């Protein structure tokens, strides 16, 4: 039981951080009008399925804003 | 008083002499056109005047103070608008102007008023968009506003109109005319109609040298070839007039097309008196006799020949 609490004490914030990252990237992607529809789908897959790294890569290289 | 004095400016890249002893000065209270072909060295001259580039030889003075390479003190007198201005895309126009005001060391209270005035002048007030979403024309107008934030006594514009559509150009020229009341403007261009629209004086740069400078009227007066046209009622009359004019050596060969006789001469006044005399002796009544003002284009073409 102690192990479970130990586990959740640290896993919970980790999951929350991942979710924040995921949601930020997805929200940005949906609003981004500089990407074509097909590019958006590819990015969406990358963001959702490549854990942590996916959203980060999108936010650094995929935004196409500057 | 001269706001900008450039003396014997030389700059070469490798074996290519971009500037080869450029000398001219800009008096205060004028719009000064700096004309030249693409690659004539206009931008190079301006960059040196801003202390962004080191000349090989020569000096530039602004408001009497010498320009030095690097952090030059003379920049506080100057506003600069590059040909394709780029601003921080993540800021709004208001934020960018505030940054410029802070950087120029303007009084905090004053700067707020100043910023809204300038943004209103260029038509960007209440614009909450970030600069990354601006069109070329909007950036150019913001460019003017930011260049004027420090009340410069000299505004340097590098081909401000060349990238704009006709409407954007008109707006920009209007702003330049407005600015003229307080600030001396020097702008480089190869669009000669713009020069005629706003410039008082011009300098023409060719092959790294100033080949001609002076007021627009003065330069036009100096142009050697003046065009004239006589329009008559019938072709027959036109033929007679053309024939009669041929014997005058002052007039370069006249050409008849339909009812029109056209030609050039070195002196517009002489040409006119000869033509009028000729018409009188032939007792022909013309529909129109016209002497064409030389355009800046002709001035330019002759200067760089």
């Amino acid at each position: 039981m102690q192990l479970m609490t130990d586990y959740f004490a640290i896993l919970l914030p980790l999951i929350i951080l991942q979710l924040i990252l995921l949601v930020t990237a997805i929200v940005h992607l949906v609003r981004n009008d500089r990407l074509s529809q097909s590019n958006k789908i590819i990015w969406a897959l990358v963001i959702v399925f490549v854990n942590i790294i996916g959203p980060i890569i999108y936010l650094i290289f995929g935004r196409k804003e500057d | 008083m001269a706001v900008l004095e450039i003396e014997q400016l030389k700059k070469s890249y490798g074996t290519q002499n971009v500037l080869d002893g450029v000398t001219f000065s800009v008096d205060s209270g004028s719009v000064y056109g700096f004309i030249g072909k693409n690659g004539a060295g206009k931008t190079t001259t301006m960059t040196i005047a801003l202390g962004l580039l080191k000349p090989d030889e020569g000096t530039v003075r602004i408001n009497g103070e010498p320009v030095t390479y690097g952090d030059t003190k003379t920049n506080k007198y100057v506003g600069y608008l590059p040909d394709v201005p780029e601003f921080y895309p993540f800021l709004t126009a208001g934020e960018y102007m505030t940054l410029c005001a802070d950087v120029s060391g303007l009084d905090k209270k004053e700067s707020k008023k100043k910023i809204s005035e300038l943004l209103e002048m260029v038509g960007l007030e209440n614009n909450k968009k970030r600069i990354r979403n601006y069109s070329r024309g909007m950036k150019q107008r913001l460019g003017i506003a930011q260049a004027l934030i420090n009340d410069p006594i000299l505004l340097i514009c590098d081909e401000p109109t060349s990238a704009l559509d006709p409407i954007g150009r008109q707006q920009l020229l209007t702003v330049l005319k407005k600015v003229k009341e307080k600030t001396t403007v020097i702008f480089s261009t190869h669009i000669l109609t713009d020069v005629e629209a706003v410039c008082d004086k011009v300098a023409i740069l060719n092959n790294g040298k100033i080949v001609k400078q002076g007021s627009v009227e003065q330069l036009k007066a100096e142009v050697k070839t003046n065009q004239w046209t006589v329009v008559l009622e019938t072709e027959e009359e036109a033929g007679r007039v053309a024939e009669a004019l041929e014997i005058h050596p002052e007039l370069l060969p006249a050409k008849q097309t339909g009812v029109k006789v056209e030609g050039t001469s070195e002196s517009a006044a002489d040409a006119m008196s000869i033509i009028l005399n000729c018409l009188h002796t032939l007792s022909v009544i013309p529909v129109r006799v016209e002497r064409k003002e030389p355009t800046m284009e002709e001035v330019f073409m002759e200067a760089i020949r």
Partner: protein
Amino acid sequence: MRGYGAFIQKEIRENSRNYKFFILGIIFAIVGLLSPLSARFLPELMETLMDENITIILAEPTYIDSWLQFFSNINQIALVAFVLVFSPVMAKEYEKGTFIHMVTKGLPRLTIYGAKLTVLLLSWTIFYLISFLITRAYTLYYFPEGTSEGLFISVGSLYLFGLLIISLLMLSGVLFRNSYAPLLAVGGGVAVLFIGSIFPVIERWSPLQLATRNVEVLTLQSTDPAFTRGAIITLMITVMFIITGGLVFRRKALQ
């Protein structure tokens, strides 16, 4: 001074609006969480993955393992991400010509350089602190028997090594217009340090000790003269890089 403040504000806006602070914040926080997590649970994970016929004896993890993970994660993930995210710090402005407006408005170049450097150093400080505090809190929770003796020096030395990397990032950013150049410069610099460490003479003076001997310092709870020399050298090179970068930027062609 006003120009300095205004330019810092611009940098902060830029980095927040371009998600740079956000990304680094998340990465450093994850590193802070991941380190005690893997120290605490890796042995159990190993056991479940291992074939039952093979018995391996795993030592009971201690607070040292947690910090060991911290040091290697900061080195291999967080610092790398930091350099990646900030490598275009100068190149983008060179490329777009945005410095020109600032310089022609009379903002001294050293102020620009100083403001950029300040923001980088502050970011590193804050993010590193976040990461450290998270690891520290969980390490205390999981391994209450651990001591904090030697912790300050071992964690501080990695921080110092980060400063060296940032000063090199800025110097190479000033020197080269390409946005990948700082990556290569930092990568090359670290490679040189590793190659140098093959030779014991250099190893005993190398700044690399600050990034590789942290666990040793923590375990022994003391430093030796070689480590101290490395720290002093690091500090000296950092200052030298910073000054050189400033001097070069003052004379750098902006167009």
